Each structure stands twice: as structure tokens, then as C-alpha cells.
């Protein structure tokens, strides 16, 4: 009987190997593993065998059954996979077809730039605050050492709300610097803030001038703040925004509310300092005005200039994407042509 079992296994496995369809597979299962199969009959008739033979035959029959079952399962999986592949054959995907479009917009380039700038300064411990666009003459000029009839008023062509001229006149702020005063009126050192915001000028618009633009003001006040700290802070800023290899130049300049005054320039992004039309053949592009907060400004907000010192800076925002992307007309920003905005 053992011999019969061995022959059965060889025959069954040989047949299974040749099967290619699921129907044949089912017939095979009934034939070899079904209730009426020879293997089953053998397993049922074991009781009539003598004890010793019963044990060895039974063990062998069970092993063969397990082998056949396992092989069947394997064959089923192989056949299943083949079936799936053959069914896909008919409708193959053209994976080069475009995907389902999901429309998405973009942030305005100025928003993107403002976020970047503020992020750099936030990493250095500066807090972002905002202030009003419509200001008193007092904050925009007077408190910043630019009283009535001061020649520096020529530097700020102003759009006025009120037509009289005194410190109670309202105007559209010409810079974000009035927030230096507002912040220092309300906070005591240590102070570290940046102020993004819209500014306005009474100015005919052309490719390089806009009547509305964005600035970011910075202010740090505490004991022992120095021009060296200002240089370090703005060095870091310029490297963060324009890359490690960018050279930064600090030179003397005049703003009535700082002393010493500083102008910060970086090597031209177009010519790398060699000189070109964009940088007026100087190799340098001015990007920031800055300086140490003027002692008279500190006194005005009751901060003792003998004990405290601070630096302030103001940065034109449009300039940055213009330099980076070679945008040659500032009016594109607020013209809001989608063909422009979608590029950023």
C-alpha cells in the first residue's frame, strides 16, 4: 500500500504541473483530494490494517496529503496572478496621460519675500509687529529728528491726508521707521523687533519707482549694542538671503534718526561686482539703510542714551525679488497680472 501511495503522489504532482486553467485545477482537486479520492479511501481504510502497518501507512498518507494540498495552493496563486495579468492585457494604462489637474494658486512674490525676511530675523530673536499705514506727522517725522522745515524732509515726498502742516497732520507713512517710536513708547529694553509694512511716496511711477512699496524695519535696543552688532546682524541677513559668497559693504550714510548712519550694499547679483548697467557700473547694489539709534530719539521715548544703545535698519522689499529674478519693472508687483504672479 505504501508503494501505491508513492505512485499516487508522483502521478498527482506530475498532472498538477501541467494544469493551466482553474477548471482543470478543480477537477484535479476532486480527483486527488476529494472525498472519493483514492487518498481519502486509503486514509479511511487504515483501521483494517495491522497496527504496525497502520502507523507507517497512516503517517505517509497524511504527509502526502499535506504535500498535495500545499502544492495545490501554490499552483492556485500562480494561476491567479497569471489570470490578473492576462485580464489587464486588454486595457493597458497609458501612463503618459496627464493626471487629474488639481488647481492651486501661489503666494504673491512680496508675501513670499516678506515671510523669508521675517523668518531670518525671527531666528535671531526678533519679534514681528505691525503698525498703522496712516500716521501722524509726529511719528513719521518729528519724533525721528525731522521737524518741520528740516532739509531731510526732501528725502521723503509725502502723500498727506490733511493739508495743514504740523505734527497733528495725518499722512501715509513714508517709511516704517515711525514704528521705532511706537515700539519704544510701549516697550522697555531689551527690544528686538522687525516691522513689515506698506509705505507710500508722492512720486511719479516708472520702472524703478512706485508710489506704494513695502519696507521691513528692524530695531534692537539694549545695553551694549554696537555698530559691530549691526554689522554682524546684517551680514548674517545678507548671507541668508543672497548666499554665502555675497560680499557686503557697510559705508557711512545719513539718516536723521541714526548716528552713526550706515548704508549697506551687496555685490551686484548680475555682474558679481565687476560693474554693469544694473548697478550703475559700481559693482554694488544698495539694499539697506541703517545706523545706531540717535540719542535724541532715545531721549524722546525716555530711554537713557547713556545706559542704552540700539541699532535700526530699513529695508526695501521689492528690491529683493527684483535683484534675484532680474525683474526690471517694479510696477509689475502691484499690476497683478497673473502671467507675472504665476511665475513665483
Amino acid at each position, binding site marked *: 500500500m505504501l508503494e501505491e501511495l508513492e505512485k499516487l503522489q508522483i502521478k498527482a504532482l506530475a498532472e498538477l504541473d501541467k494544469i493551466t486553467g482553474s477548471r482543470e485545477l478543480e477537477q484535479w482537486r476532486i480527483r486527488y483530494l476529494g472525498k472519493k479520492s483514492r487518498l481519502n479511501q486509503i486514509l479511511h481504510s487504515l483501521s483494517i490494517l495491522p497496527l504496525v502497518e497502520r502507523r507507517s501507512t497512516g503517517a505517509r498518507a497524511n504527509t502526502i496529503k499535506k504535500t498535495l494540498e500545499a502544492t495545490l495552493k501554490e499552483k492556485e496563486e500562480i494561476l491567479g496572478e497569471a489570470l490578473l495579468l492576462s485580464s489587464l492585457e486588454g486595457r493597458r494604462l497609458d501612463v503618459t*496621460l*496627464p493626471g*487629474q*489637474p488639481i*488647481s*492651486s*494658486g501661489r503666494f*504673491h512674490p512680496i508675501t513670499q519675500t516678506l515671510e523669508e525676511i521675517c523668518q531670518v530675523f525671527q531666528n535671531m*530673536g526678533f519679534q514681528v*509687529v*505691525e*503698525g498703522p*499705514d*496712516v*500716521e*501722524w506727522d509726529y511719528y513719521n517725522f518729528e519724533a525721528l529728528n525731522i521737524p518741520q*522745515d*528740516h*532739509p531731510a524732509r526732501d*528725502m521723503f515726498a509725502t*502723500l*498727506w*491726508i490733511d493739508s495743514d502742516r504740523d*505734527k*497733528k497732520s495725518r499722512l501715509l507713512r513714508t517709511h516704517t521707521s515711525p514704528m521705532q517710536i*511706537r515700539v519704544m513708547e*510701549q*516697550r522697555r529694553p*531689551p527690544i*528686538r523687533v522687525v516691522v513689515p509694512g506698506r509705505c*507710500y511716496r508722492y*512720486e511719479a511711477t516708472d520702472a524703478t519707482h512706485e*508710489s*506704494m512699496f513695502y519696507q521691513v524695519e528692524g530695531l534692537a535696543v*539694549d*545695553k551694549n549694542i*554696537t*555698530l*559691530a*552688532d549691526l554689522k*554682524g546682524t546684517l*551680514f*548674517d541677513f545678507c548671507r541668508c538671503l543672497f548666499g554665502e559668497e555675497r560680499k557686503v559693504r*557697510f*559705508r*557711512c*550714510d545719513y539718516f536723521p534718526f541714526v548716528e*552713526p548712519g550706515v548704508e549697506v550694499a551687496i555685490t551686484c547679483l548680475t555682474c558679481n561686482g565687476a560693474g554693469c548697467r544694473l548697478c550703475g557700473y559700481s559693482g554694488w547694489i544698495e539694499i539697506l539703510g541703517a545706523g*545706531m539709534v*540717535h*540719542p*535724541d530719539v532715545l531721549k524722546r521715548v525716555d530711554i537713557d542714551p547713556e545706559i542704552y544703545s540700539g541699532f535700526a535698519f530699513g529695508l526695501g522689499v521689492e528690491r529683493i525679488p527684483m535683484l534675484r529674478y532680474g525683474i526690471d519693472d517694479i510696477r509689475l*508687483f*502691484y499690476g*497683478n*497680472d*497673473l*502671467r507675472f*504672479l*504665476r511665475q513665483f
Partner: protein
Amino acid sequence: MKVSLKWLKEYVDLKLTPKELAERLTMAGMEVKTIETIGATWNNIVVGQITAINPHPNADRLKLATVDIGKGSPTVVCGAPNISVGQKVPFASVGAQLIDGHTGETILLKPAKIRGIASEGMVCSEKELGISDNHEGIMVLPPEAPLSIPLSEYLGDAILDIDVTPNRPDCLSIIGVAREIAAITGEKVHLPELHYEESETPINSFVSVNIVEPELCSRYCASLVLNLIQDRPSPDWLQQRLKNCGMRPISNIVDVTNYVMLEYGQPLHAFDYHSLKEGNGTPQIIVRRAADDEKITSLDGVARTLNPAILVIADKERPVAIAGIMGGWDTEVTKETNTVLLESANFNQATIRRGSNHLRLQNEASLRFDKGLNPNLAMPALKRATQLLLQMAGGKAARGIVDAYPGKSEPKMIAFSAYEVERLTGLKVGINKITGVLSSLGFVCQEISPSQISVSPPYWRSDIKSAADLVEEVVRIIGYDKVPVTRLGSSLPQQESMLSLGAQRSNLKKKLRNFLVGCGFQETVTYTLVSLEKLQKLSPNLELKIPPLKVANPMTREQEYLRTNLRAGLLSTFHHNQRHEPGGIRLFEIGKVFLPQHPSHPSPDKGGGGEGLLVTPVVATLSETKGKQSQGERELPWEKEMLCAVLSGPRAEMSWRGDTKPIDFFDAKGIIEALMNQLKLKTSFKPNDNDPESSSGLTQEARVNIISENEEVGIVGLLHPKVAKAFELSGEVYLIEIDLEKLLKIVHSQLPAMRYQPIQRFPNVSRDIALVVDEEIPYKKVAKIVQSFPLVTKVTLFDLYRGEQIPKGKKSFALRITYQSPERTLTDEEIDQIQQQMLDKLNLELGATLRSNNQKV
């Protein structure tokens, strides 16, 4: 300020190239904008002298000129009409680079034969040298021009255009710039020596000065020159210098005053002495305010009406000059003038500034006065002008100078130390070095102690007032590049709480931006200033709900009013883009609007952390600044932030899978529902029926107010066709508008209330029902009843049907209702019971009937 390098060299030794000099000046605060080089290309051109002129054998109009150039006497063929023997001329030999007089192109001079005669070079016109456009004849040099020296040495120059900052009027002069250069390079300044012969007659017997307004005129100096030789032009070199610095030569007397103004920075004026009215006795110069409506004809020939804010120089009868701004026509020097009264005075900076603004008259004189000059400058400048006038025009000077000086002040003394420099800049400099730098700039330093000095600024540096000013002087001359670079080491300020209104505001704006961009909206930034017309277009009935704030001096009508909403800018942007955007357009802006008044003007809550600095509350703080400002009735506008979005076109981008349905009201509403969900805010919508259309600008049939926490935070709906037409928009445009201030308050107040819900352990059960109701019944009523039953956790409308299968005038809502209990697994019987009660109630209150009832899914 245009500065001739050649002129500068008279006062300071210069070893730097123009480019190096420009760099050093720029770094020290005098930005050199351009360098214009005269004669940079003049190789092989020298000063020659015409020694003989012979006719050309083959041409009547040409001549043969022999030119002595020191090392030879070449002969050239020349056609210039103005050539004559003895002239000094620029002579170019072969190889010189010139400009072709006819074509304007740059050429290299080659050996040539003209009508059979070899020409060994060329006598040049100004145009050929690139000096001017003059090609009428050859350029004739002054007789004193040294023979045979290179022309570039004789006439070449570099003109630096310096951007002088308003604090440095002293550098609106050659001597001022020379002083800067001397300090930067460590050289010495040599000033002109001032002396001239005076006659016996004292000036007092000719003129006296009466300053009626000593506050407005701190000094008035005058000299007198008699018996001038009239109408002689200034020498070439002086004319050339004026031209190089951008001024036009006029006559010897006027040129002298202009020359000294450029040289010293002090404006001067020359009166024709005999035109001054004497009254009884000698003429008197009176410095006074103009009378109301007083008239003067200024020397540009314009009749001007004055007022008491304007200072005038008058004789006993009438004003003869607008002080510091322009002289009068009547007393101008003319060809007949033989006696000149020279004025060198100091006028109040603000008065000149206001006067020239009022008269719209700005010139080199007023530009210097309005920066604030020092009265000490008046005397040396006057002496220099008198000296030059005597040289140029002959005559003799009256003895002495009239000097009325009511505004004399003591020199300032500033205590200073090396510590100040280090404290403000981090740069360590010894006191000796500091003293050296300051002395080179003309400051007088006295040692008080080994570490401290007392510094007195030179008279021309009125801008120096404090130790900080001295720090800048020291550091800018040493060089900002020598200042070390350090990172901020000071203590960090207290960090703003993320729960503060300020942090929440920027957080909210970020979330909204991110959300909308994700929904396909492009962010825009539009102008704050808009036209009244555009604001009016927003209301179909052309009435403005809020009168906008107006700019007093607008640049254009397009930008005259402060926007009271974002719609005008956004719809204009929409209009601008629709021409080239065949697909849909989705735009939004987050920005401020400006309302003339604060609603009820609540007192600003100053306690609110960082918010104290933010837009809204900060507006009113001016009155609180130590009583410094009483603002009267005026207040700053309420600047509140808004969100506005517009959308139109197909729901999805064009695609091969095709959803090409246009956007409708429910797309716009769905965006708001998702947005509010993103902000974790419960939201409801209230049909907006009562608002007149004129104020909402949206059509009454398709608009709803957005409600959260019982606040109307915004509106969404279809743009009114009249508004769309006014902005020339095509297609249906939906508009979303949200009041960020209200939304922020809600978000901020919800923050502490938020609590986590445990995940439900027991399964939920869903049942679908279809209800038939009258057409008039709004969905909201049905949903409200269903939601009022216990254990109902969610109701989803998944179909809306009108048609043959149900009676006319009815509609069918298919709802999926989800039930769940936090305590147990629900049984079918339990749900059946609730659902029956629900149907009863729907039937009773809304007349709803069941259309079909699919059992649980």
C-alpha cells in the same frame, strides 16, 4: 554737487586716481554717483601755436597752417574760418583719437593728403575733442596756455558728481570736499590767501545795514567795489570751471559770485550800488519781512507777490532782493554798472526753505541756505569774492566791510573719550588716534584727562552736536570696514506668547493664505489708494456706505482715496486678467481697509500682550504719549484687515476626464465651509434678505452671511450683475469677503475652550431615508429636526430630486443619518424607534413624507 578734480587739486594734494578717490569718498559718506573724465583719450594731442598761414595751392577755401609744437613745426591743411597767426590751438598728430566732426564717430587720425598736399596732423575743433558740439571752427586756447604740453594735462579733468547728504551743506563747495579728501588721505588743505588793496574811503560812508529781524538773519556782511570795468567776460579758466560744475557763465561780476559760492559754499549777491534808493543820506540795506502782498520783480523777470513769511532785502523804498533766494530786477548788475555792493549774509534756514517752496523757486543759493549754513562762513567768502572781483573787473574796494552780526554764538564744546567710540561701535581706538582724526577734519581737541578730550567743531560743521556725531566722524574716516563684526550678544526680549492676539493674527493670516492657495486661488496685492469712481462702481445705486478718506495731494485721480474695502482692487485685477485667462480665475487678497472712524471708538485694551503694537489698538495711543500730543478731534483711521476672494469659470481645470461645469453658489459656499472647518470654527449661514442690494453688491437670491459664534464674520454670494457690468466682468463672478478682525476674535476666544474627544468605542450605524417635502421648505429646517434627536451624530444630504417620480411642487431629500452611542452598541429596535419619532416630527412640522426607506447599510 559736481566737483572738478583739477579745481580740487588747488586746495589739496591728490595722489589717488579718480576712481580710488571716488571709492574713498563714497565709503566716508560722500557718495560719488558718477565720474566724468574730460580728455581721457587725448593721446598725441598737444598745445601748439600757429606761426604761419599760407593759401592752399589747389583750393580757395583751404589754408596751409604751420603749427609750432615745441619739437617741430608741422604743416596742416585747415578749412576753419577762425584760424589766425599767433593762436594757441590743440594740435593732434597722427594716431590721435578724435571724434569725426560730421559723423560723430570715433576715429584714429591717419596721415592724409588733402587736395594734393600732405597734412601732418590736425588743428581740432571742440567737437573733435569731445568737449562740446561746436564744430564751427577750431578751438582757440588762451594765450597763456603753455606751448607743447599735452592737452590732457592742460585741459583734462575729472568731474565727480557727489550726492551730498542734507546734513553736510559745507560739502556743497570745492573747499568743503577738499577738506574731506584731506582728512581721508592725511593731506593738508591749502586755502586761498585773502588780501586785497582797499581805498581810503570807508564803506560806512556808502552804505549801512539794518537787520530788523535778527532771528531770521544772524549776519549780514557787505563790501563795495567802485570804478569797475564793465562788461568784461570772465577769464576762460573761470568760465571753464563754472561750466564743469554745471553753471552757466553770465558776466564777470555774476560769475565771481557764483565761483565763490562753488568754492566756499556761501551764496553771494551783487547789487548795482547806484540802483539802490538813497532816501535822505546814504543807502541803507534793510533786512525785514515782506509786507502782505508786497511786490517784487525778481531778476528772472517774474513779478512776484510776497507775504510776511518771506524775508526780503530792502532799501529805504522797496524790496531789492528776496533774501537768500533771488535778487531783484531793478538792482541787478548791468553793462552800465560801475559800483557793486557785494552781499554775503546768513539767513534762517527754515525761512528760506518755506520761502522758496512758497515761491516755487529753487536754485543753487536757496538749496545751500535751506540746509543751514554757518554765519562764520560769510566773512571769508565775501573777502574772496571782493578779491576776485578786483582781479577780474578792476576798480577799487571801499575800506573795510560792513558786518552786522546779531547772531554770534559761542563755539560748542563736546566732552569726548575713546570709551564713547567703543561703546557705540565696538571699535577700540586710542585717544591719540581719535584726536588725530578729528584734527584732520578741523576739530580742535583739548586734553581734559588722559582718557578724555574736549572737542570743538570747526565753524563749517554745524551738523556736529553730540558725542554720537563725533563717533561717526572718527569711524567714517578710519573706515566702517575696520569696525569688527559681532553677533548680538544682548539678552533676548521676552518672547511673545503663541496665544497672544498678535501671534494669532499672523497665524490666522498664514492659515487663510495657505488654504486659499490650496484651493486654487492666486494671491494678489493691490493698491491702498483707489479712485472714487471705482468705489462707487461697487454699489449698483452709486451710493457710498462709508465715505472714504481722501489724500490731500494725490498724484493721480486713480489713486486718490483710501480703500474702504478690497473689492474695488480685486475686481479691477479680475478685469485686467480676464482678457488673457480663458479658463477660470480665482483671486484673493488679505489686506487693510481704512475706515475714517473707529466704531464707537472703544478704548484700546493695552493689556493684550504684543497686540498693543498691532494695527487696531495702536491707533489711539498718540494721545497717551505723555500728553505731548493733543490730537484734537482728529484721529487716525480704523485700519482693519479683511479677506476678499473672487472666483469664476469652470469648477475644475480643463481635462480629458472632463468636469466642465461652471462654478456656482455652492462651490463658493463649500470653500467657506471647508475654510471654517480648517479653523475649527462652527459655522452657519444666514440668508441675507434684509440688506438692500446697494450695500452688499451681491445678488439677493444668491448670497448668505457667514455666521460663527453669533457674529456675522463675512458674506459669500454672486456678484450683482450691475457691479459686474460696471467693472466689465464677463460671466458669473462669486465673491467671498471675511472680516479678519471678527474672525480673529472668535479664533482667539475659542482657543482655550478646545478639548479632546475620546475616540468612540462602540460602532456607528447609518440609515438612509428619502423625504418628500414641499418646494418651499428649506433644507436647513429638515436638517435641524433630524439633528435634534439624540444619538444622531451626522446628517449628510446625498441627493436632491425633483421630477416625475414625486408630485409636482415637491422635492425629495435623500439623507444618510448616522447614529452612535458613547455607552453601548445600538440595537436595530432602538434605531427604528428613534427614526419613527423623527419621521413623525418631520411629518407634523414640515409635512414631510417618506419616499423610500433603505435598511441599514
